[in-house]
C-alpha cells in the first residue's frame, strides 16, 4: 500500500517586494533583488514555493565606526572613511547581495550631518556599487524625519528600502516613500500586535505601500532573547500563510548589529581563556544567530563579518536545495 504523505495546506502566501531599479526601470542598479513570495514555512519546498532566496546585506556607515571590535580593522580599516569604497569592497570582495547604509553621522550628538550631506553619502554609495540599497537613518526620530524627504528625493527612481518607520514615528518616512516610490521598513519592538497595527496605519496612508513594506520585528542575538524574536517571526509567518494580509510581508533583521554588541562576540581570549579565540567566536556567534533567523523566515539578513557572511551564504545554498517529494 502506498504511503500517503500528509502535507500542510496554506491559504495564502507572503508578499513579494522588489528592491532597486535598473536603468530600464528608472534607476541605476545593475540588477534588482526580489524578496518574499513564500507559500510555505521556511525551506519546506515540499509544501509550497520558496521562489526567492534569502539575501545578505553588509552594513556600511557614513562615518568611521569607533565602537566596532578591532577585529574588523583588517577587513574594512582602509575604507572606514569612505562609504563608497567601503560598499564596493563589501560587494566585490565579501559577496554582499546588497548594501545597508546607516546614516550614523546625522546623529545630533555625533556629527549632526545635514540632510544634504546624508543624501550625498547615499549618492556616493549608489555610484560605487550596482546592487540595491537599504538606507537607515541615525535612529533619532526628529532628525530622521528631516533626513528622509531629502534622501528619498535625491535617490528618486532607485527603489530604495528606507528605514525605519515606528508606531510613534511613521508618517514622515511613509510620506517620503509615497512621494518618491521607495520601499520601507516597518519596525516593531518584538511585538506582533504592534507589528500588525503599524502595517495597518501605513496602509491607511497608502494602500499601494502595503506591497512595499518589509517587517523588522526587532531581533536579539543568540543568548539575548533570540527565542522571543524567533517566536514573533513564527507567528507573523503563520499569520501570513493563513491569510492575514497585514502580516504577509518579507522580514529583515539587524543580525550583525545585535551580535557585535554581545560580550560573547567581543571579549578577548585573555579575559576568558576558556572561550577560545575572540574573532572566531564572534564569527560563529553571528553565523549561528543568522542561521536561526533563516529558519524563522528572515528574508534579508543584515550582517557585518565577511567570514560569517561566507558561512551563512553556504547555509542558504544548502537550504535552497529542493527537498520536495
Amino acid at each position, binding site marked *: 500500500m502506498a504511503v500517503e504523505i500528509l502535507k500542510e495546506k496554506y491559504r495564502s502566501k507572503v508578499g513579494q517586494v522588489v528592491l532597486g531599479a535598473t536603468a530600464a526601470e528608472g534607476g541605476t542598479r545593475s540588477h534588482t533583488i526580489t524578496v518574499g513570495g513564500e507559500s510555505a514555512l521556511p525551506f519546506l519546498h515540499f509544501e509550497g514555493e520558496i521562489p526567492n532566496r534569502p539575501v545578505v546585506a553588509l552594513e556600511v556607515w557614513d562615518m568611521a565606526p569607533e565602537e566596532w571590535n578591532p577585529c574588523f580593522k583588517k577587513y574594512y580599516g582602509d575604507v572606514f572613511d569612505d562609504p563608497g569604497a567601503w560598499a564596493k569592497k563589501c560587494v566585490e570582495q565579501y559577496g554582499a547581495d546588497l548594501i545597508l547604509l546607516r546614516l550614523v553621522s546625522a546623529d545630533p550628538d555625533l556629527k549632526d550631518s545635514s540632510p544634504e550631506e546624508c543624501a550625498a553619502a547615499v549618492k556616493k554609495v549608489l555610484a560605487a556599487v550596482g546592487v540595491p540599497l537599504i538606507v537607515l537613518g541615525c535612529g533619532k526620530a526628529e532628525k530622521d524625519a528631516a533626513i528622509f524627504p531629502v534622501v528619498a528625493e535625491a535617490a528618486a527612481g532607485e527603489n530604495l528600502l528606507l528605514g525605519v518607520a515606528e508606531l510613534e514615528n511613521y508618517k514622515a518616512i511613509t510620506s517620503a516613500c509615497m512621494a518618491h516610490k521607495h520601499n520601507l521598513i516597518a519596525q516593531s519592538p518584538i511585538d*506582533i*500586535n504592534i507589528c*500588525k*497595527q503599524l502595517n*495597518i496605519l501605513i496602509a491607511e496612508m497608502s494602500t499601494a505601500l502595503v506591497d512595499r513594506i518589509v517587517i523588522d520585528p526587532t531581533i536579539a542575538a543568540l543568548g539575548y532573547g533570540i527565542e522571543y524574536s524567533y517566536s514573533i517571526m513564527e507567528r507573523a509567518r503563520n*499569520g501570513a500563510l493563513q491569510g*492575514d494580509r*497585514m*502580516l504577509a510581508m518579507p522580514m529583515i533583521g539587524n543580525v550583525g548589529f545585535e551580535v557585535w554588541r554581545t560580550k560573547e562576540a567581543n571579549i578577548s581570549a585573555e579575559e576568558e581563556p576558556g572561550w577560545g579565540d575572540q574573532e572566531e567566536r564572534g564569527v560563529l556567534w553571528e553565523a549561528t544567530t543568522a542561521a536561526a533567523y533563516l529558519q524563522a523566515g528572515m528574508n534579508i539578513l543584515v550582517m557585518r563579518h565577511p567570514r560569517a557572511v561566507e558561512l551563512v551564504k553556504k547555509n542558504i545554498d544548502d537550504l535552497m536545495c529542493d527537498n520536495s517529494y
Partner: protein
Amino acid sequence: MIIIGERINGMFKDIARAIKERDPRPIQEWARKQEANGAHYLDINVGPGSPDPVGAMQWLVEVTQEVSELPLCLDSTKYDAIEAALKICKHPAMINSVPAVQAKMERVFAMAAQYNAEVIGLAMSEEGIPKDADARVALAAELVANAMAFDLPPDRLFIDPLVLPCNVAQDHGPEVLRTLREVKLISDPPPKTVVGLSNVSQGTKNRELINRTFAVMAMANGLDAAIVDACDDELMAAVATARILLNMDIYCDSYIDVFKKSNRL
C-alpha cells in the same frame, strides 16, 4: 467567520419594489453597503410570491455583479431559478439551500458539481425540523454522504442546523449548539456549518442583542458562516472580537476595522 449579507431579499419592502420596477439602485446600494461593512458573500433572494422567480433572480444577480465582486449566495426553493443564476455568476456561488430529501439532494448536488458551487444543506427532512441534536446530526450525515456521491467534497457543504426563534422554541438553542460541534465528527475533512442568524430573534425585543450573543456562542462551538445583517456594526464588532478571543486572528488595536476589510484584501 464567513459573513453572508442577508439584505438583498424580496422580503424587504424596498427590495420587493425594486424587483417589481426593475430599479437597480436599491439593490446596488445594499450590495455596496454590505461589502463595505465586511460581508464576504451576498445572499440573493427574490422573496415570496414573485410571478417570475427565474427572471427576477437573474436580474438580481446581474445588477449585483455590476457593483460587487463578492461571491453570491443564491437563496431560493425554486431550483430552476438557482440554475439560471448559476449560469451567469462571475465567481463560484453558494446554493442556499437543500434539505435532506433524496430527490432535492440529487438535483442540487448535481448542479453544484456542474457549476463548482458550494451548498447549504438543511438539517431537516420531509418530516420537518428535528427536536434534538442527534436527529439533526443524522440528517447532516445523510447530506454529507449524498454530497460525496456527487463528488462534492464535504468542506464545500455548509450544514445549517436550523435556528428557531428563542421566544417560541427556547429548547432548540442548546440543541443547535451541540449540532454545530457534532457535525464536525461526521467526515474528514468535516463539513462546514452555517446559520441564518436573524431567525433566533424573530418576534422578540432586543433583536440585535440576541443575534450577536448567539453569533458569539455559535462561533465558540465552531460555526463557520452565518447569514446576517452585515450592516449591524455591533454584530460585526462582536464577531471580530470573538475571532480574537478564539485565536483565529492576531490581535492589533484596529482589529475590528481589519476584520471588516478582510473581504477586500
